[in-house]
């Protein structure tokens, strides 16, 4: 017999639907960090990230009995969280807020990498600029870039999460990256990379 931590998401959902409520705890502990990180990247606020993540898991809890196991749990929870993010952004549109998170705490992200003081400062500057550039993208491109770059979802998973064809996901990703390149250039961040002389087919 498998323990909850050994079960796949699908098995946990099945167990929950069979009345084993503790299976949901495992799903929460498995996904809450990822969801919170994604929400934070979309909204840029620690407080909102915490609230929306909590709300997303609450909604998932309420709806999990009716959840059809054709979709992945991860796609579904991302979908709920992103819908909540969109609602939040819509509510805030036109209102100006001063985020208490500005600037974000920076120490933990670089200390762990053993960066030198110079790298530390430069790294923080780059992070701030990336963050600013991503916030300038439109919502659709931002979501796709976050899900792909930071959450590591496949094109198919993103398509499932956002309810789009995979071709649209790739197009949005392409356009988002091109825009990011321009925003980063305006922010003074060079994104040059080694240009291959040739491609062997």
């Amino acid at each position, binding site marked *: 017999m498998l323990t909850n931590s050994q079960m796949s998401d699908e098995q946990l959902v099945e167990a929950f639907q069979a009345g084993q409520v*503790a299976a949901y*705890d495992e799903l929460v502990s498995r996904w809450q960090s990822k969801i919170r*990180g994604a929400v*934070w*990247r979309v909204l840029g606020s620690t407080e909102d990230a915490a609230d929306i993540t909590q709300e997303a898991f609450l909604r998932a809890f309420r709806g999990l009995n009716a959840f059809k196991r054709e979709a992945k749990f991860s796609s579904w929870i991302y979908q709920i969280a992103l819908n909540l993010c969109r609602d939040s952004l819509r509510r805030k549109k036109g209102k100006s807020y001063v985020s208490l998170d500005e600037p*974000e705490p920076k120490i933990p992200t670089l200390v762990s990498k053993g960066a030198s003081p110079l790298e530390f400062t430069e790294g923080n500057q780059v992070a701030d600029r990336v963050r600013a550039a991503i916030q300038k993208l439109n919502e659709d491109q931002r979501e796709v870039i976050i899900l792909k770059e930071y959450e590591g979802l496949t094109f198919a998973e993103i398509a499932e999460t956002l309810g789009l064809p995979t071709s649209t996901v*790739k197009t949005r990703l392409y356009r988002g990256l091109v825009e990011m390149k321009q925003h980063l250039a305006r922010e003074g961040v060079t994104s040059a990379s080694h240009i291959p002389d040739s*491609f062997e087919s």
Partner: protein
Amino acid sequence: MTSNLTCEALREDIIALLYDDGELAERSRARDHMAQCVPCRLEYAELKGVRKVLGGWDVPVAVVPKVVPISRPRVSWIPAGLAAAAGLVLGIGIAVAGRTTLIPGPAPAQTAAVTSSAPANSTASPTNTRFVSYDVLQDALNAQEAHHQAEIDDLRRSFFQTAAASAPAGSATKMVSNPSPATIEKLLRASEDRQARLFEARLSGLRTESDLQRQYDMAQIAAGLAYIDSRTGADAARTSELMKNLVRVTAKPRDR
């Protein structure tokens, strides 16, 4: 070099190659195309560079705190099984230890094992737990069972005697030691009648209580409405007065 139209049509394939995701054919197409197309190769390198920069944006630890288990501690089947086994062993141990105190005199010769280093006949101390043979244990259990059976019989006898003594003479509920089915049925019916009467009395009490509560609530609501009416009237008068003042103040001097 391929035309711009082809380059545009191959963007999705280039993205597939950039992320090493999607179908193999897409990536092969992108590679084939870029082998001949310098602008696409350049764009590919730039997008790769953008990806590299994006990688420099980590989520701070403050945003994603370490996950703490939110529910009750999990008990996996292995510890649960061990606990059950331990409980069983402990239970048997206690039973055996209990039984040994019932066995008079020194331990019998056929004792299978002695776990204590103390002498076999020192049964006074509770720490001197001994393992006894199956036959001895069986005898002790039989003796204990006979003892319990005798106790139960005594209790039953005393119960019927007490009940018979306390019941009024000729009562329908008179206790008999060996009641017939007809008597049992009669007793059951009497009990059901009693329950029904009790239920009816309780229901009636609840109805009265509920009526009283409703009357009280209605009175409260009426009082609340009267209060709101009076407040609204006062507010309306005050607003009207303020409006009059406002009109007077904002009017042109010749209109005053």
